[in-house]
């Protein structure tokens, strides 16, 4: 029968060796990827402390989360401060740096590429400890410099928690700038040099080249980096955890969704609640990615 021959199982049986070779990835994915994803979805409708019996609670984890002051604080911190502000600064900086490294006016390009990328491959814990030293209240290098030029020292972790956000943002930008620079560089190198040459012949300035050639042609790469950055932002954990601990410091100024997930799950032992939170984060990522995709995939005018 022809239809049996075309069936999936027949094909699998016939090519079993090939499937065997590619199976390690799928087995690992099912165990460490798919199962946790499905199980945490199931967990999000339960109340569970990790040891005792699970108790079906329906949507009440989600309802409680939407009423939770700390959830909204974490959401705003993550989206507005670390998300929006940090990324506008970081991605524009990365684009400018990549453009400069790629342009003819910069020498030792490889040196700059490595220098900007190096922070990204260092351990986030080690980096955070170094930044903690910089941000020291009494002994910190930044406060020392401020005081020696006659300014008031910064109370990084105190007050209303105003300085907690910049502290995390600076560390975040420092760490992830190089990564975005490298992505943009790769994108820039795919832009044909003829376009630049033509612009030069027409007498375009560096800014005009940047505005009318680089940015429009880099659109897909920018979309890619923005979406990855958003996912990275919503799951931000290491940096604020090392700097201000799992409650996010005074006034919860540094509390991110990633931190709150860890806090509710692993410190407070509310695994159902934490799973519900992770699914809200997932929905959030999907929504924001769609919005981004809509904005950036519009065909450039002209």
């Amino acid at each position, binding site marked *: 029968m022809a239809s049996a021959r075309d069936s999936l199982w027949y094909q699998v049986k016939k090519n079993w060796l090939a499937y065997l070779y590619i199976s390690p990835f799928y087995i690992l994915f099912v165990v460490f990827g798919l199962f946790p994803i499905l199980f945490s979805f199931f967990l999000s409708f339960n109340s569970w*402390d*990790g*040891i*005792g019996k699970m108790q079906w609670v329906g949507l009440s984890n989600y309802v409680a989360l939407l009423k*939770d*002051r700390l959830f909204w604080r974490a959401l705003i911190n993550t989206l507005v401060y670390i998300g929006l502000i940090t990324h506008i600064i970081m991605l524009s900086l990365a684009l400018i740096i990549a453009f400069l490294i790629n342009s003819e006016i910069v020498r030792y390009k490889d040196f700059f590429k490595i220098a900007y990328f190096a922070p990204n491959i260092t351990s986030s814990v080690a980096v955070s*400890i170094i930044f*903690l*030293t910089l941000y*020291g*209240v*009494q*002994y*910190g290098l930044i406060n020392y410099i401020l005081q020696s030029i006659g300014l008031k020292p910064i*109370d990084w*972790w*105190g*007050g*209303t*928690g105003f300085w907690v956000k910049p502290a995390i943002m600076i560390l975040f930008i420092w760490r992830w700038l190089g990564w975005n620079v490298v992505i943009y560089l790769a994108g820039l190198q795919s832009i044909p040099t003829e376009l630049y040459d033509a612009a030069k012949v027409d007498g375009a300035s560096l800014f005009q080249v940047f505005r009318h050639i680089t940015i429009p042609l880099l659109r897909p790469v920018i979309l890619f980096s923005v979406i990855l950055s958003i996912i990275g932002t919503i799951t931000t954990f290491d940096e604020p955890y090392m700097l201000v601990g*799992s*409650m996010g*410091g*005074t*006034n*919860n100024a540094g509390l991110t969704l990633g931190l709150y997930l860890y*806090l509710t799950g*692993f*410190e*407070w*032992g*509310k695994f159902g609640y934490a799973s519900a939170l992770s699914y809200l984060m997932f929905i959030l990522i999907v929504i924001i990615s769609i919005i981004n995709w809509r904005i950036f995939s519009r065909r450039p005018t002209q």
Partner: protein
Amino acid sequence: MKKFLLVFLTFIFLVSTVSWAVAEAVTITLWGWSPWDEAFKPILPEFYKKYPNIKVDIKIMSNPDVHNKLLTSIAAGAGAPDICGIEIAQIAKFASKGGLVDLLKPPFNAGKYEKIVVPYKWHESLTSDGRLIAFPWDIGPAAVFYRRDLFQKAGLPSEPASVQKLLSTWDKYIDVGKKITIPGKQWMIENASSIFYIYYAHQDFFDKEGKVAVDSPRALKALTIAKKVRELGLDAKVSMWTPEWQALIPDGKIATQIVGCWFGGFLKTWLDPNGAGKWGIVPIPETPGLNWGGSNLAIPEQSKHKEEAWKFIEFALARKTSQIAIYKAVDFFPALTTAWNDPIFYEPDPYFGGQKQRLLFINIAKQTPIPVVNPNDPMAESILMQHVANCLDQGIDPAKALKDAADEIREKAGIK
């Protein structure tokens, strides 16, 4: 060549069968954090002599890893060790049924040790339904560690007996703080929140009936004192364990540190190893019977060698000579009261300027009341300390901060 290979394989086969026959020994695994390998080193040779058929495999991980991995392996139903360390701050997480064996039941019958373990530690290790899920190891009687040299420089007495009088109340503590603190140079304490924290280190967030107790008069008093210390600028506003704190302590910029007795071991080994003679210890003003920290050993239900594991726990924790050896090695203060009559507790400690500091901690431990432990403690602690930080940093009224904390804990714990 072929013949050689055959002989070789036969040899390997023989050796492996022989060693299979000899090694009937049971290996028990133990999870813990640094410096537990150092702690057990002095007692292991004797243990092996007594129980030649038991081997102990100690796995050192970071402290949060031990607890998280234990929790996941209990949830997964496999992968747990035979013995696992549990810090007192984390014990509430494991209090719900299942996962860890009740040591009061046969064949363990740990109940016979109740009268030789310091009462507050014993009760701290019990669940609300009366199970003992982890055997008490060490305790953290809390005290004020102070810098003799800073007291001297401020023209104050520096011997423990007179400093104890000098710091007998919190008002006096604040007066001394004003004399010692030099803004921007040296401070009375590293962070005002520590004054509050010592009253609520991992416990007493709820009362016996399970009602939230963080807005009690005791909490209000502690927070009012802490706020006064902050407003007078007596604290360095530095958090414990940060790199900055680790620099300020050995530099002699912090006059007092209010912590558990384990801090003495930290000072000697890594925090201020050159500080011999510069430190002294006195009880906490007004409320000397406080505790911060300590750990226990538990046996997971999954363990296939529960009896061997229990033999090791008994040998290490319920036996005076082992506890003294561990105390000498890593400064883990024994919860085992029978260990307290050892001569070491009556010896002057050269690091603390010849003070008999160990005796002081016995006295503190004897005065410590039985705490209330609740499964929601870890959550209550983080929410409470958050509101304490808000109160100190933003000048929120202490009573309001504590009420807010209590409301939020009630909401999150789902109680009225």
